[in-house]
């Protein structure tokens, strides 16, 4: 049906009548309330489920508010032929978005930057020595995005790895905070991320109490970094508990 | 457009037979086995040579002589209008090939069987004559790496605009669309190894233009030899010989 006119015509999505110019950037003063009504240090409700994709060796689905992610793990399987011999396993990560994930249609279907970050966050947790010469593929698809996609992808991927039976030192949990002048806001949604002064994302292995990945943008003083890190680490610990219980549930289900 | 003024001066103030200022420096990339920077006026290229070393891709190994490879790339900021340049486009593949074939002709590859020599040239600034500059830089880098060569290859271009043979074209003259002869010679053996000309040019004028380019190549060869000599003296001095 689309074939009627050769080239796809230029389209736009209609915006609200109340013109955007009137909407001032939100004032982040004391009585500012987050758009979804959460407290500053309250995460969105997290939902995890393993085994979302049967075709994969392991998979997981994660839902944080309206951010929805599926991660599939394939392998360990044969490395691509061009690869040289390696006595430890390889990890290959890819993150992509659906065309309807973002408010404006079709932005960034393949996310190189996220793929690289996911790789860096996971490689320290996986015991690569257990599958020499082979590759584990971790593919993530963001179904819907409304902020903090990368932390959700990372946590979800570690769950999918666990589901696939890949040996890991620990689960990997990831949480980010946004900084607004003086306030720290945990697990920001897109609207907050677009206006933030700075961001801090921590990926850690909670049981080992080790940070595998840390990214900070914006201007931070040292005490602020301390505060932000502590906040994230605590949240990671709680998140890991939820992830663990999800795994336990799946294990007990399959035993029945 | 007038490329040579009635007074016999070119756009950048040179005489028709005048070459741009050349400058060379050896050892710009300390990790490489041999490297050099070569400048011709505003054109500036850097060449690095890795090898002779083990052949990386065994299927390419040649049992009777060495494998010579070359990659040419341009920096994003090398031209006036900035654009992202992807490696391996047609132009750079062509130039890579030209450089490789030219250098292969002078390297004594039969002395280094089953090995590989990589020549990487990176253009930092392009203002006409990058091809020649790359060959000159590669020669220096190969010499710095101590790779046996029959002779130093040197290269220079010459053109023909406003009925005047011009030596060493810059970017404006190069893009004027006139004939542009790029020549590479082995100066001591007095042999031409590279000759590229893709425009109409009467045969008797070609001879003139070529002769001019040969003169240019010889001048560059002298300079390169001086640089190498100077470099060797310094090495000697450092070793305390």
């Amino acid at each position: 049906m689309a074939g009627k006119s050769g080239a796809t015509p230029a389209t736009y999505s209609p915006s609200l009548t109340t013109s955007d110019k009137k909407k001032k950037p939100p004032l982040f003063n004391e009585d500012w309330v987050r758009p979804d009504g959460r407290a500053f240090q309250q995460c969105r409700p997290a939902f995890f489920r393993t085994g979302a994709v049967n075709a994969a060796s392991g998979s997981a689905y994660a839902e944080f508010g309206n951010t929805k992610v599926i991660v599939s793990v394939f392998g360990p399987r044969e490395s691509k032929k061009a690869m040289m011999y390696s006595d430890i396993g390889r990890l290959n990560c890819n993150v992509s978005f659906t065309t309807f994930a973002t408010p404006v249609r079709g932005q960034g279907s393949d996310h190189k930057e996220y793929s690289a970050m996911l790789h860096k966050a996971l490689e320290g947790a996986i015991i690569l020595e257990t599958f020499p010469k082979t590759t584990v593929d971790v593919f993530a698809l963001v179904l819907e995005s409304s902020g903090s996609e990368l932390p959700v992808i990372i946590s979800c991927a570690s769950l999918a790895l666990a589901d696939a039976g890949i040996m890991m030192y620990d689960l990997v949990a990831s949480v980010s905070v946004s900084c607004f002048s003086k306030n720290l806001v945990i697990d920001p949604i897109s609207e907050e991320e677009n206006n933030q002064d700075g961001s801090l994302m921590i990926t850690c292995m909670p049981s080992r109490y080790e940070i595998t990945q840390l990214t900070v943008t914006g201007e931070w003083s040292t005490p602020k970094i301390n505060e932000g890190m502590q906040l994230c680490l605590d949240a990671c610990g709680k998140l890991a508990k939820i992830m663990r219980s999800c795994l336990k549930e799946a294990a007990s289900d399959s035993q029945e | 457009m007038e490329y040579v003024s009635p007074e016999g001066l070119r756009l950048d103030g040179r005489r028709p037979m005048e070459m741009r200022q050349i400058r060379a420096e050896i050892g710009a990339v300390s990790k490489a086995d041999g490297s050099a920077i070569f400048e011709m006026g505003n054109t500036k290229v850097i060449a690095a040579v890795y090898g002779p070393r083990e052949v990386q891709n065994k299927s390419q190994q040649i049992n009777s002589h060495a494998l010579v490879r070359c990659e040419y790339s341009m920096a994003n900021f090398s031209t006036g209008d900035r654009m992202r340049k992807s490696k391996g486009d047609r132009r750079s593949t062509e130039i890579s090939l030209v450089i490789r074939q030219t250098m292969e002709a002078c390297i004594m590859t039969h002395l280094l069987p089953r090995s590989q020599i990589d020549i990487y040239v990176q253009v930092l600034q392009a203002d006409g004559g990058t091809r020649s500059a790359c060959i000159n830089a590669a020669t220096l880098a190969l010499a710095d790496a101590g790779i046996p060569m029959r002779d130093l290859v040197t290269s220079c271009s010459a053109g023909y605009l406003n009925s005047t043979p011009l030596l060493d074209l810059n970017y404006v003259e190069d893009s004027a669309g006139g004939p542009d002869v790029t020549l590479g010679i082995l100066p001591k053996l007095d042999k031409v190894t590279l000759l590229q000309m893709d425009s109409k040019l009467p045969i008797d004028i070609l001879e003139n233009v070529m002769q001019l380019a040969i003169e240019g190549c010889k001048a560059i060869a002298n300079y390169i030899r001086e640089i190498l000599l100077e470099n060797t003296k310094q090495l000697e001095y450092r070793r305390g010989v």
Partner: protein
Amino acid sequence: MEYSSDGRIKRGNHAAKMYIIIIIKCLKTLAFTGMVGLSLGERHFIQGGIAQDLRSDGRKRLTYRPLSVETGVIPQVNGSARVRIGATDVIASVKAELGKPSLLQPDKGKVSLYMDCSSTADPAFEGRGGEELAAELSNALQNCLLGGKSGAGAGIDLSSLIVVEGKICWNLYIDGLVVSSDGNLLDALGAAIKAALSNTGIPRVQVAAGTLNDEHPEVDVCDDEFLQFDTSGVPVIVTLTKVGRHYIVDATSEEESQMSSAVSISFNRQGHICGITKRGGVGLDPSILLDMISVAKHVSEQVLNKLDSEIASAEAEEES
């Protein structure tokens, strides 16, 4: 001199060690192309040296290699600089082009960073081989130099790039090129970008009278009058590389091959953190990380001073 069976040097005095350094250096020049694999002995040597606070090239753990800055190296761009730290050699260039600001931020110009790894630096960068590292470096630099989404903590004041709000702004294209690599590329590129920015002159622009309210105002770019950038806010990047139980600054590529993880932190003049990225997958204890931050902060002050004076002398040299 005593060697244990695996080539590790028994704890001896520094003089003996320096001597061995020389021997190893000689051996290395004999070897084919440098880095591909280090022998067990070499690895122990590097690690042992770091543990004893005397690295293979004689430096202490927190000492930088000599740093040299050259500005104005590329004539056809608005600003450029070449920075050499030991054998690491990078070039950064800044090009300013007039463009249209984005709808979301009509009062700000745009800055884009593109890094490129030349295959001259390492044969492994041939073809598309350098792209992965280039992308990683670009991302890390973006993190460290451009600040948060709202622009807080940015080294470059984006609102100073505006010519006519919502209509015309300067777009800065920052290109980096790694010419020779011997470790610590991120710090070197960060320093080169800072130097290139302070070398940058942006032409003064006059908006033609009466066209200010048009959709496309006419502008007149002066060729002889340039506005200098305020680069005092541009942070420096300090990378701490963890080898064994210790961390070092300005690691060479040999040392980097032995790292378990590396943390790059950028600091501005006020001593505030402007960005952190971590490389290497091995986990770090949060307390070690905080310790690293405070060490990096201390080092950054020295680096900033050193860099500023180098930039100033490079600028003076260029003018003379």
